[in-house]
């Protein structure tokens, strides 16, 4: 058993957790009923009044909230407090038409940072540590969330943000960074870079890493642990709910504890919406019960997970979730960025190609690669090699601008993309996660 950031909460009895959730859920339903016309209408349509929701056992009566609901209410129609009381927004990675703006009050940020602080303490962090936050800062929640958590723990915080690998390595060495926060693929990349520079794992000052925002396998965890000479921990979160720290891994490295005093987790059958018991695989649903500015009732994450209430060796009592085992939609997470095939299709059509394409995702040296194979069309084809290459480069630039990450484009022969039962196989994901 290690240290805790908020022991009385993190190790509370099941009864205490339920009591907290009951009270907070009832209050939250009343809060959205009073302040968000969208939720009020939705509850009315379902025939539910706030007084019908007395606690967690009534949760299943509430209707789901979906990403489409968030999109329809862009930017601030779901905000449940006066805008004067909001002090910040964060936003999702900006997939066209799917951007979500999440609002925070001062208190919302405070509680979010508590969650991140718990994650840092759970990996052995204390005020003696130097915590380098190599997640992006800005609209993305990764940087700001861990930055706030690191402050709360009292670590010396190094806000390097993402990118500039040489500088990252320089700070790790010069400032003796002990805790690294970034995406697992970037951690692997840093590890490889340090190895190439001749640094041995025991010479690297790091001792732990908090890696999230994308799926990663146990093999990848082992690789990172070996090259960096650290313990590597997972963290889970969504901008819609707050950001990183909705759930985090403890010293056991076997699943992530959901911060149940702030979020109620459920797993449901993605087809019927029926709640599933512990141990069964289904879609992960979250209800935020403390968030004031941007509360969500039964939000469908589209992540496939399993929940477990088994006793954990770390002493924490909060329910554990597995890392996401898949998605219920076609969203891909590539280098930590959400990518929908429909976005790629939009760009292709705009650039004069047809919607005959294939997306091939792989992981080479622990870094995700994105290749888009596009069938050549009579409209795009010319007798001029330079002209074709120029248009190809334009397509690469347009994809980068849409997706925020680089995609390699290969022009292939017409009708060469495999079609099964008349329908093209759009995505081939060769990553072994």
């Amino acid at each position: 058993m290690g240290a805790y950031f908020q022991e009385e909460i993190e190790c509370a009895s099941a009864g205490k957790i339920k009591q907290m959730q009951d009270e907070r859920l009832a209050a939250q339903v009343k809060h959205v009923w009073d302040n968000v016309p969208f939720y009020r209408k939705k509850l009315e349509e379902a025939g539910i009044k706030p007084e019908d929701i007395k606690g967690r056992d009534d949760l299943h009566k509430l209707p789901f909230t979906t990403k489409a609901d968030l999109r329809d209410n862009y930017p601030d129609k779901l905000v449940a407090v006066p805008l004067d009381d909001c002090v910040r927004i964060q936003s999702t990675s900006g997939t066209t038409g799917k951007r979500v703006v999440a609002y925070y009050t001062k208190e919302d940020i405070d509680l979010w940072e508590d969650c991140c602080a718990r994650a840092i303490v759970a990996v052995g962090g204390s005020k003696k540590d130097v915590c380098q936050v190599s997640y992006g800062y800005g609209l993305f929640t990764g940087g700001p969330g861990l930055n706030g958590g690191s402050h709360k723990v009292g670590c010396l915080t190094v806000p390097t943000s993402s990118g500039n690998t040489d500088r990252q390595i320089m700070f790790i060495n010069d400032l003796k960074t002990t805790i690294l926060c970034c995406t697992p693929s970037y951690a692997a990349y840093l590890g490889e870079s340090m190895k190439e520079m001749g640094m041995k794992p025991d010479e690297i000052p790091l001792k732990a890493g908090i890696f999230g925002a994308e799926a990663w396998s146990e093999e990848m965890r082992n690789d990172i642990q070996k090259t960096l000479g650290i313990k590597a921990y997972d963290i889970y979160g969504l901008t819609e709910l707050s950001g990183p720290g909705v759930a985090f891994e403890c010293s056991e490295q076997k699943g992530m504890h959901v911060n149940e005093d702030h979020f109620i987790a459920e797993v449901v059958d993605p087809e019927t919406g029926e709640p599933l018991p512990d141990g069964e695989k289904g879609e992960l649903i979250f209800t935020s019960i403390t968030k004031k500015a941007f509360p969500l009732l039964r939000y469908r994450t589209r992540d496939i997970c399993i929940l477990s209430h088994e006793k954990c060796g770390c002493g924490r009592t909060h329910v554990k979730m597995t890392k996401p085992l898949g998605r219920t939609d076609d969203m891909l997470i590539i280098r930590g960025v959400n990518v929908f095939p429909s976005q790629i299709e939009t760009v292709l059509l705009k650039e004069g190609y047809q919607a005959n394409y294939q997306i091939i995702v792989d992981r080479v040296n622990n870094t995700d690669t994105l290749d888009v194979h596009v069938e050549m069309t009579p409209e795009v084809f010319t007798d001029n090699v330079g002209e074709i290459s120029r248009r190809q480069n334009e397509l690469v630039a347009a994809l980068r601008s849409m997706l925020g990450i680089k995609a390699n484009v290969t022009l292939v022969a017409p009708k060469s993309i495999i079609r099964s039962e008349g329908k093209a196989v759009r995505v081939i994901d060769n990553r072994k996660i």
Partner: protein
Amino acid sequence: MSISQISVFLENKSGSLSEFSGVLSDNNINIQAMSVAETSEFGIVRLITDDTYDAATVLKDAGYIARITPVTCATIEDRPGSLHEIISVLNKSGIDVDYMYAFLGGRKENHAHIILKTEDDKKTDAVLKSAGIELLED
């Protein structure tokens, strides 16, 4: 004054050229001249055939993307210096060559044919013709 060339898109991968030549062979298409321009990913095959329309139809039916482009075909003597004569004429007239290829033993004995693609095929034809260079046409 120009002749018709067929340009075809091929993927730069093992077997695609063989598949392509197979289609031509199976359909009795006779190739008079040919060149391949390639990048690391794709190639453009350029062909002069006996019957451009026939070849283009066959290729289209086989699922290829083909485009017919007018190119200049100059006939020169099969001797040292004859290529330089036409290139220097073009150079003096400020005409840049996009690409070119040549073949021997074509439609005239002891002569070679130079296929030229420039930005302006009409101007190219006029310049070469006034320099007394023989041009082939369809």
